[in-house]
């Protein structure tokens, strides 16, 4: 596994698996990573890269948008505690006020696909799914990752040449992992 901190203009090998934080990073503005996230997505689309996404990444992105909406609704800082029970209590208000934004990630992927961008959902086959199932607990153990992070890495390892993420944990993972073809591309400000 190779690690690179992405800088504008740097090449990214295709196919590219996108972590949830990259989907959110490019869709939501004003934060520290936004400009580079938008530039990176622009480069991928301009270079006609194959873009790989997973239901896990979309699920996490939806969670992020729900939390952002909760923070705005109740004037909370972005790091405020937000749990499943809080979400359940606020869900109606979130959708009442911010319903359209909850469609943003899905609409973006649909528009990209309709425009001819190669957007693919992974795992693609039963065999791929079983590989991800096999790799995920191994990565949880070997790299001390949470279940979701390990699953993202397994999805990327199974299908992609590059794994684009804003999660700095993967810098350490790339140092520990044996060298192979996967590049961890770290989105930094």
């Amino acid at each position, binding site marked *: 596994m190779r690690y690179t901190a992405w800088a504008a203009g740097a090449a990214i090998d295709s196919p590219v698996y996108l*972590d*949830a*934080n990259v989907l*959110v*990073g*490019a*869709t*939501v*503005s*004003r*934060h*520290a*990573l*936004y*400009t580079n*996230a*938008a*530039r990176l*997505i*622009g*480069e991928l*689309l*301009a*270079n006609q890269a194959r873009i790989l996404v997973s239901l896990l990444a979309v*699920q*996490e*992105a939806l*969670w*992020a*948008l729900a*939390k*952002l909406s909760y*923070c705005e609704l109740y004037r909370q*800082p*972005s*790091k405020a505690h*937000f*749990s*499943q029970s809080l979400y359940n209590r606020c869900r109606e208000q979130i959708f009442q006020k911010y319903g359209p*934004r909850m469609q*943003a990630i899905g*609409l*973006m992927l649909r*528009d*990209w696909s*309709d*425009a*001819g*961008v190669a957007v693919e959902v992974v795992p693609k086959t039963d065999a791929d799914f079983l590989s991800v199932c096999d790799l995920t607990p191994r990565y949880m153990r070997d790299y001390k990752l*949470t*279940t*979701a*992070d390990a699953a993202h890495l397994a999805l990327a390892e199974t299908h992609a040449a590059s794994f684009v*993420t*804003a*999660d*700095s944990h993967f810098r350490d993972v790339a140092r520990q992992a044996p060298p192979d073809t996967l590049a961890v591309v770290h989105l930094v400000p």
Partner: protein
Amino acid sequence: MSTITLGRRRIGVSLEPYGSDVGQGAARASIGVRPESEERLSDLSRRFTDALRGSLERSGFPQPEVEVIEQREPLRRTWGAVVVAPGILVRADEFEERYGGIDLQGLRARMAPAVFKAFVRHIGSIPGRPDLDVDEISAIPEVR
């Protein structure tokens, strides 16, 4: 130089002292019509400009060949708003927030129009905040 504005056309009328007539109050008038870029011109206004330039030529006002600049003007400003792509209009402040620092013209040159439109439509479409940590906020507590 006096300028007459007809819609979006600018016609310059210049009154310059004429050679030996200096001091006698005489002057020579020169009239010019500046061509606009292709994207700015509708077919009708282009024909109007061509007709006006031809008429001036025939009336003894030679029209110099003027290089048309800004052949590709991707971002048109309309009453403080910016057209980022066909059908996508944003306020000027929103434009800076979402597209500032991004080489839109360079990307547009490298993308199919439909892809560029899909790109600009969605990036930064949700207003965030400076204290937002996109990795932290994407972590589902009970799962990740």
